[in-house]
């Protein structure tokens, strides 16, 4: 192992040893207004190689039937090859896919919510799936961190 690789692995270990946040839900508050946070969120998802498959317009659906709601979206995303491979071997995971992040306005700020992919891991404790769940978890955390910054 050369010095550069060793330093990289040390830094990676340091990052991974940061606070685990597998308590309840993955949540983040951004001081960005909803439209700005929504733009950054979509960009952060795409930057990690995911395709956004749908933006569910929750508040519009509510308002059409005269219920009040602030801006509210569910953003669905996935990676084609990854989804195809994992559901071919584990079709029960179809119920949990594509991945999603919910975002809603909170006054001038925005709140994002997602379920921990590691929660699914608890239901399907297949060692072969763990690296995938772990990566999804890290990606969603990184996406939320980017919107929060």
């Amino acid at each position: 192992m050369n010095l550069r690789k060793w330093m990289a692995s040390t830094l990676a270990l340091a990052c991974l040893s940061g606070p685990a946040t597998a308590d309840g839900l993955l949540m983040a508050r951004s001081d960005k207004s909803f439209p700005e946070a929504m733009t950054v969120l979509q960009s952060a998802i795409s930057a990690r190689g995911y395709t956004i498959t749908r933006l569910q317009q929750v508040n519009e659906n509510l308002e059409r039937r005269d219920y009040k709601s602030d801006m509210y979206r569910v953003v669905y995303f996935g990676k084609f090859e990854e989804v195809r491979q994992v559901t071919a071997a584990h079709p029960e995971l179809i119920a949990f896919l594509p991945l999603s992040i919910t975002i809603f306005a909170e006054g001038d700020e925005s709140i994002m919510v997602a379920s921990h992919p590691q929660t699914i891991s608890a239901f399907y404790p297949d060692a072969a799936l763990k690296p995938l769940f772990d990566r999804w978890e890290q990606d969603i955390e990184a996406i939320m961190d980017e919107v929060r910054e």
Partner: protein
Amino acid sequence: MLRRFIAWMLCAGLGATTVWAAPVQTAAAPSGGQLYTRNCASCHGQRGDGGIGVPLALPSFQAGISDDYLRQTIRHGRPGRVMPAFPSLGADEVEAIVRHVRSWNKGPSVAYSKAPIAGNPVHGKQLFGQYCTACHGANGEGAKGTGVTFSRPRDLPIMAPALHNPGFLDAAPDAMIKATLMNGREGTPMQSYLKLGLKEKDIDDLVSYVRSFETQPLGSSATLVKTETPVIIRESPYDLNTTVERVKTAVTTNNFFYGRVQTLEYGMTPPANENPNQVIVYFCNISLLNQALAIDPRVGMFLPCRVSIFEKNGKVQVMSVNPKVLSQLFNNSELNQLCEQLEQSYTAIIEEATL
């Protein structure tokens, strides 16, 4: 000379260790503010002004709580009342968050004795019914509406907490409960019971009644529905297309409107490349949706309702996430009834479609 050489080698070694370890220490020790941002701000607000959670920076809140109350609350949460436990945080991380939250305290720090307060719980129960139930519930289950954010209509920035909750009873010693009753909490509906005309002895009786919740069965608001199975799944005797049509019909007969049908891979690849054997039927009941969001605005992450149908090795299966999973996930007992109702609806839809 040898001793000097060994000493030099040890120093050099330690020096080298320090140099190489430096980035690790920097990366692994986030400040209390950073930990608060990551773990607490989404509900309590970046500046502690509340929202989904208690406004932690409220001066009367800061004046009435101890550091240990915060520590215990972070550690154990409030079962069934949205505030999760944080067992994965280390003691030093909890302490850093406590220090950050306490930086908003402009007054003197309070520490409470853990000694029990003697009182008459029978008389305390009478007083509780007279003075406390309107806000805290007949059995101390707390106010309705946990988890409601400012993005939806809301009268007050703080809601009466559940007193009959193991998290609260672990965190709040008798002396703190007594102090809250004596002084009230300015900026919230909680008034000073002395000003309401109660004597200190009455307040001791109330405290002893609240403490007696520990010996009673778990409060309804602290109980979450549980499930063994994360998904509801049934095999269909029909081919995939027929099953999809039957699911659409079953959705409608169970008071939902059918929204759309898409393959799982929709949007990830050109339509011609999508796997036609993995299909999702999306559906909704807007009134139910509004009701769910009023209870907990975060449930949108499981919207819209959906049932998945897939074919593998000639077998067609129909399934959905079991809504009972949500009650645990959100730590919100007010979702219990809705989760039970949705589980029944999903099961009915899936069973009707595969009958």
